[in-house]
């Protein structure tokens, strides 16, 4: 019977000893045992290092996320597929020399037969060749960066530094006391640090790897091989980027673990802090401390309302005022309209307080409230920060048209009131203010400017006297239009004071994907900022006024949907507010619709209708100066600046994990363009010069604000002679250069992952794709085309070896 043979790699020691190792592409033992296999085979350091990594990852799986399985799988895969090479290397390091492969039944037989000369080893080393031929040269160049990074301990140094920065230092970060704030600070800090550190490393590497190869003449060896220069360039970039990807992977795991660890720690600390919190503070936190307090926001949370019903029943039972059985009372409460539900809770709570000590409710209810507050914090983190929320802005296209028409009308009225006919733009003199259309405004204001400039001497000499109360006459049409356009915007954003719900501002959000089919437990978030001002204040005055009135509170009612679901609260201005809205909460049980009969025929109580349109109604009950005297109101107007994009509806678009992955991809995208920039500079400069050039470019890219200002001003100089800007030939050059620079740089700056992630904003796949398209396709493309072109034409043997 023929003996079963395997393939063995035979090694010879200088002292004449032979040894055979299994020649297999995949070693099952190494694949299964991973680091333990390394230990058993004498790879002590490697085994120890990998075992530590696996232990941390295993802890991550148990405590945080199943995603920590990824590094373990990678390690085992690496060991399994590289077992033969790793063992061979151990032998070679100990002086053994590879002689070739033989087929034999066992390793001992293989070694013995080669030693006796019975078998002649064939020089056919086992090689897993997965790289396609056309890509081999580029792969070789890219791999070189890895080899250098590991031989010079660069990879481990940077990895250690990054892990320290993102895992060790954040341990001392405090945040603003809330879990949400802590996570936000953590993500902002760590991502910013990673970007700065890896960005600097990338530029340094990119400048160094190419320019040093040229200076030290290694490039002469590479360039004489059959690889086009652009592929050398590409290989260098791919090497740097693959290194960045590995470092980002390490850092990403660290940040992810750190965030979860800190949230977990925060939870236990917060519960401890709440347990020590005095009862009156707990009441305040739960919005139950005002005399005659109104329904707090948490009552709109289904789970919190459900808890409150249970407490109501228990408090009523303790007080002996329960009318029916506990289950019956609970059902009764659930079927009540929401305001009545809260009234029942409030009555029971006040009664419990009165029967306890008159100052605070019984301990059990305070403990329940503490538990609820702790859950709120986690819910906020879960829904707001550890999430990927996409944004829907209100539908303003129709409003915009109306606002523009209104602004044109205001301009026409003002001009007709303040100017005589001689100043009027030709063809527009008309007593009918409706006659000026928005489309005509550019022509109107240009002609108005010309007329004012041509007769400016009449104004300055005093020959033309504006009629009474018409001072500060604008000297050009642009200024005039800007003022009234701003006033029109303010008018359209204003929510005027109203004692009852008589006057309100309605805003519609369209295209809220799938909102009407959300479960009752799923929340969307309304995020907005309010501004307060006296009626008729224009935008600049509004800014000024807010400085003086920012400490005060506004009593505002926000109604979601068709007038049933709403929240009334005291809100500060100039800070962002976020309200949880449960789009289908109020319509979950149609048969027992608590608001049945209170709505007009055909309308549902959901916040979002079947067409996924969300309606928001805002009522302004005025400014409250003293919370102890809530009925004293000041009739300031409120505004929701939705033209500035400060009103939006956020809905759950993806998990935090997916969003985090996409954020890291955007960071990777930015590192890509930095790498391309470094290589482009190093394509024709020495290392120090290339590094300085990169720093210079980065500084310029930070100055786009100044450049945009110069472009807006129309020149560098700001001197005028009687209403006319003084021009200079340098202006022309500056305008052309700045226009070119801003048109390249500005689009790139729109893609920042840090703010989005720290605010729990979703970076959608579309945004990610656009980021790559713009940052790599536009900015990167310019650098790559320039760098590859210059490098391909460069004479590489002009310098001797340094």
């Amino acid at each position, binding site marked *: 019977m023929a003996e079963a043979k395997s393939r063995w790699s035979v090694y010879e020691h200088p002292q004449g000893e032979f040894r055979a190792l299994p020649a297999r592409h995949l070693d099952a033992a190494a694949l299964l045992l991973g680091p333990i296999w390394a230990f058993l085979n004498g790879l002590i350091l490697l085994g120890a290092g990998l075992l530590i990594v696996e232990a941390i990852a295993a802890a991550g799986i148990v405590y945080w996320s199943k995603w920590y399985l990824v590094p373990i799988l990678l390690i085992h895969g690496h060991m399994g597929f590289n077992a033969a090479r790793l063992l061979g290397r151990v032998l070679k390091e100990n002086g053994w020399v590879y002689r070739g492969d033989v087929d034999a039944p066992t390793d001992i037989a293989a070694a013995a037969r080669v030693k006796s000369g019975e078998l002649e080893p064939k020089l056919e*080393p086992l090689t897993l*060749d997965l790289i396609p031929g056309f890509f081999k*040269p580029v792969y070789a160049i890219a791999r070189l960066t890895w080899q250098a990074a590991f031989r010079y301990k660069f990879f481990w140094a940077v990895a250690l530094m990054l892990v320290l920065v993102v895992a060790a230092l954040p341990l001392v970060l405090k945040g603003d006391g809330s879990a949400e704030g802590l996570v936000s600070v953590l993500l902002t800090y760590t991502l910013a640090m990673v970007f700065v550190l890896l960005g600097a490393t990338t530029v340094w590497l990119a400048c160094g790897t190419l320019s040093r190869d040229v200076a030290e003449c290694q490039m*002469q060896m590479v360039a*004489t091989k*059959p690889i086009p220069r652009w592929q050398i360039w590409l290989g260098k970039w791919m090497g740097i980027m693959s290194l960045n990807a590995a470092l980002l992977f390490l850092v990403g795991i660290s940040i992810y673990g750190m965030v979860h660890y800190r949230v977990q720690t925060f939870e236990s600390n917060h519960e401890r802090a709440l347990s020590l919190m005095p009862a009156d503070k707990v009441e305040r936190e739960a919005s139950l401390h005002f005399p005659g307090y109104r329904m707090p926001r948490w009552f709109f949370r289904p789970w919190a309302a459900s808890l409150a019903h249970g407490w109501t029943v228990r408090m009523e039972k303790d007080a002996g005022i329960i009318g029916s059985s506990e289950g019956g009372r609970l059902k009764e409460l659930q079927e009540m309209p929401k305001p009545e539900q809260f009234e029942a809770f409030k009555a029971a709570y006040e009664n419990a307080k009165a029967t306890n000590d008159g100052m605070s409710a019984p301990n059990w209810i305070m403990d329940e409230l503490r538990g609820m507050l702790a859950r709120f914090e986690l819910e906020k983190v879960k829904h707001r920060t550890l999430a990927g929320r996409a944004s829907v802005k209100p539908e303003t296209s129709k409003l915009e048209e109306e606002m523009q028409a209104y602004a044109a009308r205001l301009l026409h009225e003002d001009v007709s009131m303040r100017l005589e006919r001689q100043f009027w733009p030709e063809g527009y003199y008309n007593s009918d203010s409706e006659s000026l259309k928005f489309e005509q405004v550019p022509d109107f204001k240009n002609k108005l400017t010309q007329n004012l400039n041509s007769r400016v001497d009449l104004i300055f000499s005093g020959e033309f006297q504006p009629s009474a109360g018409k001072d500060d006459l604008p000297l050009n049409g642009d200024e005039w239009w800007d003022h009234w356009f701003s006033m029109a915007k303010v008018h359209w954003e204003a929510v005027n004071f109203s004692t009852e719900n008589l006057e309100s501002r309605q805003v519609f959000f369209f295209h809220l994907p799938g909102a009407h089919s959300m479960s009752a437990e799923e929340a969307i978030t309304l995020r907005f900022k309010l501004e307060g001002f006296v009626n008729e204040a224009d935008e600049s005055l509004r800014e000024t006024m807010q400085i003086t009135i920012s400490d005060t509170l506004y009593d505002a009612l926000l109604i979601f949907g068709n007038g049933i679901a709403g929240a009334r609260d005291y809100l500060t201005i100039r800070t962002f507010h976020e309200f949880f809205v449960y789009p289908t909460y109020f319509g979950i049980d149609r048969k027992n619709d608590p608001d049945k009969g209170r709505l007009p025929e055909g309308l549902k109580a959901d916040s979002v209708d079947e067409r996924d349109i969300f309606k928001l109604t805002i009522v302004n009950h005025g400014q409250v100066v003293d919370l102890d005297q809530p009925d004293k109101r000041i009739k300031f107007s409120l505004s929701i600046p939705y033209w500035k994009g400060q009103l939006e509806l956020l809905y759950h678009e993806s998990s935090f994990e997916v969003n985090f992955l996409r954020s890291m991809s955007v960071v990777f995208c930015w590192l890509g363009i930095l790498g391309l920039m470094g290589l482009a500079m190093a394509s024709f400069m020495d290392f120090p010069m290339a590094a300085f050039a990169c720093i210079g470019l980065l500084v310029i890219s930070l100055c786009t604000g100044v450049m945009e200002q110069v472009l807006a001003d129309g020149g560098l100089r700001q001197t005028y002679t009687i209403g006319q800007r003084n021009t200079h030939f340098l202006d022309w050059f500056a305008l052309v250069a700045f226009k070119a620079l801003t048109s390249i740089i500005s689009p790139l700056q729109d893609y920042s992952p840090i703010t989005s992630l720290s605010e729990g904003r979703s970076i959608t796949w579309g945004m990610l794709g656009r980021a790559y398209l713009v940052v790599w396709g536009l900015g990167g493309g310019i650098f790559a085309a320039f760098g590859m072109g210059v490098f391909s034409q460069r*004479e590489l043997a002009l310098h001797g070896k340094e």
Partner: protein
Amino acid sequence: MTATETLEQKSDTQAGPGAGNEVVVKVQGLNKVFKDFWGRPKAKAVNDVSFDIRRGEVFGLLGPNGSGKSTTIKMLLGLLHPSKGQIQVFGRSPRDVRTKARIGYLPEESYLYKYLDSEETLDFFGNLFAIGGPERRKRAEQLLDMVGLKAVHLRTVGEFSKGMQRRIGLAQALINDPDLVILYEPTSGMDPIGCREMKDLILNLAERGKTVILSSHLLSDVEDVCDRAVIYYGGQVQALGELKDLLAERDSVRITMPLLPKESMDKVLDRIREDVAEDKLEVDNPTQNLENYFINVVNKARESEATSGATSGSQVAEFLRSDGPVKSAVDRRLERLSSPVAEPEAAPELEPEPEAPKVDEAKLAALSDDKPKAAPASAGPKPEEKKKADLSKANEKLSGLLGGNDDDSK
């Protein structure tokens, strides 16, 4: 007609021993002017150079420092662009990747990545030639064996001595089994055994129809292996032709044979004296070549001692091996010395060069010490002096052109 022109004409009609008719390298009217940052001419490194190199030739590129041979090589490799003139390698531009796929290049210094070990170095360059994984590793193993670095292949190139770096440099130059090998100072820093192996390898390559361009200041190396040579000075070609034409002393002859009995020897000498004056006749015993002697000593020592450095390379890598027997460098030198001269007339003397550089006077005096010595025939001439005298004229010609023997730079 100048000496250069004469030799050029000959080179057009004659090819080296292994040479075919296929022109591998064609250089025509080549000029290279280095310019400063502002585009102003700084130095004219190569001035109107033309030559052809045919398949299977071992072609020497000689010249003193700064004569333009480095620049020519770098233009042949596409690392510098000609200011004027044309270069074709295998009928294409030297910058064409298809051309580069057929070239192996060993530069004047180790321009290798210091952090790679020798196995990784060969793997890297093999990948650049898109050689498949198994074949790449196989060639790497054979080449490491050939250059004697197999035992130290896990040491990084940065840790290597200069000679070891030359060896790994040579291995990388051969990983693609090139059709044209450009070797710049290949034996620099190498021990005599390595030098011998290098020369044998060059001959082996030529035997397989490969073309070798060799640039070296070690003229004995060039003499041992080259079929043709070009000599540069001041960026211009001063001499170009077959080495045996350049070096032949056509007015004298050497006969080597076993030692004769005294009577027979006297008879032979008497017969010769009838035609040759006493002072023109030299008789001596051939001495063993120092290179051969050294190699014998080391080979004996190797049998009992171990070394942590490079070992002597084993046989030529299988994929580079010639099918037929290859004459060693020593055999070739002897063959050249004993072969009939193609042209009966004396080799043309080079025109005196008005701008010739200063040469090492002492060395030159030693090399050109060919004053006739009235030594009695019975005493026999001193072997060392005789050897110098044999080569003195050739060395004088070359030394006059080459000057010192410092490291060459561009």
